């Protein structure tokens, strides 16, 4: 699995790719927790542009990180989900707590 992290002004950008399901949930959760433990992260951006499939176990990982970040007043955003992934996010109600943006730059601007 390809996971790409970038820290910009205390906002962590996480770029996911490929089919994301239970087989990758633990690895994703552990990687995210490790970064959040070690770095000063105020906000989170999940860039889903390269994600081709997403199931409810991954939604659980995203929401779990939302809880951690929002506790300290931070924001979590979603960037550019593909249509089939967007539908899953919509049905899950995740957009009620994570705003969606058409690009990382716009997300960064709105968070700042």
């Amino acid at each position, binding site marked *: 699995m390809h996971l790409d992290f970038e820290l910009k002004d205390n906002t962590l950008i996480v770029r996911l790719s490929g*089919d994301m*399901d*239970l*087989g*990758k*949930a*633990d690895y994703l959760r552990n990687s995210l927790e490790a970064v959040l433990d070690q770095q000063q992260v105020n906000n989170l951006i999940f860039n889903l542009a390269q994600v081709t*499939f997403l*199931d*409810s*176990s991954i*939604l*659980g990982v995203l*929401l*779990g990180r939302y809880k951690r970040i929002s506790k300290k007043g931070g924001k979590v955003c979603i960037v550019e989900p593909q249509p*089939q992934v967007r539908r*899953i996010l919509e*049905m*899950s109600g995740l957009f009620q707590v994570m705003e969606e943006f058409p690009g990382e730059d716009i997300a960064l601007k709105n968070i700042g």
Partner: protein
Amino acid sequence: MQFINQMKLKFLSIPANVAFARVTVAAFASQLDYTLSDLEEIKVAVSEAVGNSIVHGYDQAPDYYIEIFATLTADTLEIRIKDDGKGIENVEKALQPAFSTDAERLGLGFVFMHSFMDSLKVESQPGNGTLVIMSKRVGASIAQISTEQ
């Protein structure tokens, strides 16, 4: 309705097999004229059911088996996903949106299965495993839900 094809798949309860199971069922289903979006929906439903067997049924133990039976008629795919795991105490409750016995999870698995397939039936008893039966027609319509305990 006369079936035109049939397959049975059995595999270990490891998370890597969630992807294997959904690709296999989608490859089988693609013998009917499903749209790509239909196939995506079938993939989500299979992933959720198989994921549940691994996470809930077998509590992540990797050395148990999950079975999938799939049947095609001229216009419908029926899928049965079966584990011999711990079973479900209260199926009606389990089917409710946002209900989960696991704090880390969202309780959306059955919601997705219900939304993406045309019918969903769950047969389960504590200690006796779980059988999820779902079907989807080509050129689908409104979902039906039924429970059995």
